[in-house]
């Protein structure tokens, strides 16, 4: 078999050859990979990473109305922000808002998904209705609810009056405005959350239920022991997305309350928007944007860490 072993030095020459060929191939495959990724990388660079660093940079400066830096103020923007009562209010509202919306959205969507997962005639119609709010834009949804919350002709107050209660200033009463915005948001997010959870439910293997049936398990036992654990990756995803969405709320505020009354609905993104594009305080607005970035970063990381441990993956 090995009758003609090449001479030692001939072998060496060949190997040197291979090495350079291999290197060339490596360079080629690297270039090719980069070509495929380049469009995405460039756009991420220009519209995501560069602006992020620019935001950090801006947060240490005062700016003129065009957004050009004028005076370096170090941490002054941050100090002012953290001592400002308006910002405190904004943070408080934001966290309250997350607290109001996230669990409620998920619980309602989960109930709807469990209902809509039954194999019944015409179930497709109900699924379509439940997922419909996903197709309704912020602007349209806010307009719908603007009517619902209308002080005199609004549906909610008419119902209240009908049963003999007094009207509520849904959008003008500081005690109610944040809740009103939260209700709108829950309604808007219901469609997406429902659709994803339904998908999660349907991807659970039916033999799990069948074997539970054979063991004679009841409806709620199955729900608790099979459905929820098997659904946990989906739930985990949905929770993360809903939290992040809640922190990014903007459109509802802009149409329903413009941050009022008494800044109770001045959620962080709206606050950034107002600071930057109404007051032209790009420095302080950037400091707030950095806070938003850090909150979302921390949320994502916590979710990942917790998720890794708790979530049951197949």
């Amino acid at each position, binding site marked *: *078999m*090995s009758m003609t*072993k*090449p001479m030692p030095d001939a072998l060496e020459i*060949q190997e040197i*050859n*291979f090495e350079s*060929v*291999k290197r060339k*191939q490596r360079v080629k495959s690297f270039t090719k990979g980069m070509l495929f990724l380049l469009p995405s990388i460039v756009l991420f660079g220009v519209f995501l990473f560069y602006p992020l660093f620019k935001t950090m940079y801006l947060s240490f400066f005062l700016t003129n109305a065009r957004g050009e830096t004028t005076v370096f103020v170090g941490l002054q923007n941050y100090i002012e922000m953290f001592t400002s009562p308006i910002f405190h209010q904004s943070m408080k509202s934001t966290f309250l808002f997350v607290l109001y919306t996230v669990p409620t959205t998920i619980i309602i969507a989960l109930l709807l998904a469990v209902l809509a997962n039954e194999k019944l005639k015409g179930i497709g119609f109900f699924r379509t209705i439940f997922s419909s709010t996903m197709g309704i834009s912020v602007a349209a949804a806010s307009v719908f609810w603007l009517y619902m919350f209308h002080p005199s002709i609004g549906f909610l107050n008419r119902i209240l009056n009908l049963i003999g209660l007094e009207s509520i200033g849904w959008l003008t009463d500081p005690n109610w405005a944040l809740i009103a915005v939260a209700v709108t948001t829950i309604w808007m997010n219901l469609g997406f959350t429902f659709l994803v959870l339904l998908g999660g439910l349907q991807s659970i293997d039916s033999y799990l239920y069948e074997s539970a049936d054979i063991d004679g398990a009841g409806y709620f036992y199955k729900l608790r022991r099979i459905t929820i654990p098997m659904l946990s990756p989906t739930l985990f995803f949905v929770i993360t997305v809903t939290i992040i969405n809640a922190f990014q709320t903007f459109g509802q505020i802009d149409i329903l309350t413009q941050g009022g009354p008494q800044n109770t609905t001045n959620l962080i993104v709206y606050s950034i928007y107002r600071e930057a594009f109404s007051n032209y305080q790009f420095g302080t607005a950037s400091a707030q944007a950095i806070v938003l970035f850090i909150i979302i970063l921390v949320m994502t990381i916590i979710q990942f860490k917790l998720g890794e441990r708790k979530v049951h993956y197949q």
Partner: protein
Amino acid sequence: MGYIELMGISKSYNKQSNVLNGIDLTIEKGEFFVLVGPSGSGKSTLLRMIAGLEEISGGTLKISGEIVNHLPPKNRNLSMVFQNYALYPHLSVEQNILFGLHAKKIDKEIQRKRLEETAEMMGLSELLKRKPRELSGGQRQRVALARAVVSEAPLCLMDEPLSNLDAKLRANMRIEIRRLQKRLGLTMVYVTHDQVEAMTMGDRIMVLNDGIIQQVGEPIELYNKPANLFVATFIGSPKMNLGKAVLKDSKLLIENALEVPLEQMEVPTSLQNRDLVIGLRAEHMPHGSEQHQIQKVEIVNVEHLGNETLISFEVGTELWTAKWLGQWLVQVGDIVPIHISVENMCFFDADTGCLIQEAAFSQKQEVVSK
């Protein structure tokens, strides 16, 4: 000089342990060469290195005299058939068959001609407009073969192409592939983990285990003269019966249970004073009707195959199986006479597992056949 030459080929995925080690091999032009071995032994890896789909970590690979280590697959002039057929699901049978010719920008007229010929040969003419998902497993297999045939590459590589088919279809396709290869004069490198497939199809077989060549040779040679215990148990069904043995006086003591007289056989010095393992094929232990060399054994299992009967019995701690021609109405627990002769035994070294001496009986047979 062979058509494909592997010189000291080795492969490692992680730079630490080798999946393949020092493979030296020559495959001749027009040969049907089978790579066989258990799962994970490195068969696919070796085949894919020949194809150029896997980088070669060490050694030299030549195809028709040229070093091709660095060449991409398309410059090696070969075709390949995959286990899952790798048919393009969105293309029709016709487009699938022509896929390669199209990619190589071969003249449209020639494409047509080759397509017709190949479809005719493979019996696919009626199916050309169908999509792969509308075909049966056997038909898909045929399309995959057609794709290799139509390329007219002189070398064809196949990686377990029949393992997704049922037993009957597999038997048919074995013959079909074999015929096709001979007819087109292809050089074939064929990977399988099924030793029956290897025995029935290969001109030569290479047995691979743990990335090391165990033996290369013609099917009969592997069967009669297994180079070591691994090949002995891997090739043949039921597998070769093994037992530890020592020479004592003029007797062979197997597993401290069976005593077989040596009779007139001369004992070569190579067998004396060492630990041995003897191997004995099932068909070499017939029913003991003659008066000599008979052992009495107790049956622990019987399998009726119709034309033959498999009888299992214990030898010390080993379970041996004998194959008797015809139908035997024996039952578990019966004590039967069985013919066990030193003449039919292969002798292996107990420490290294290597063959020391093949069965004397098979030597005689070989002479007869030549």
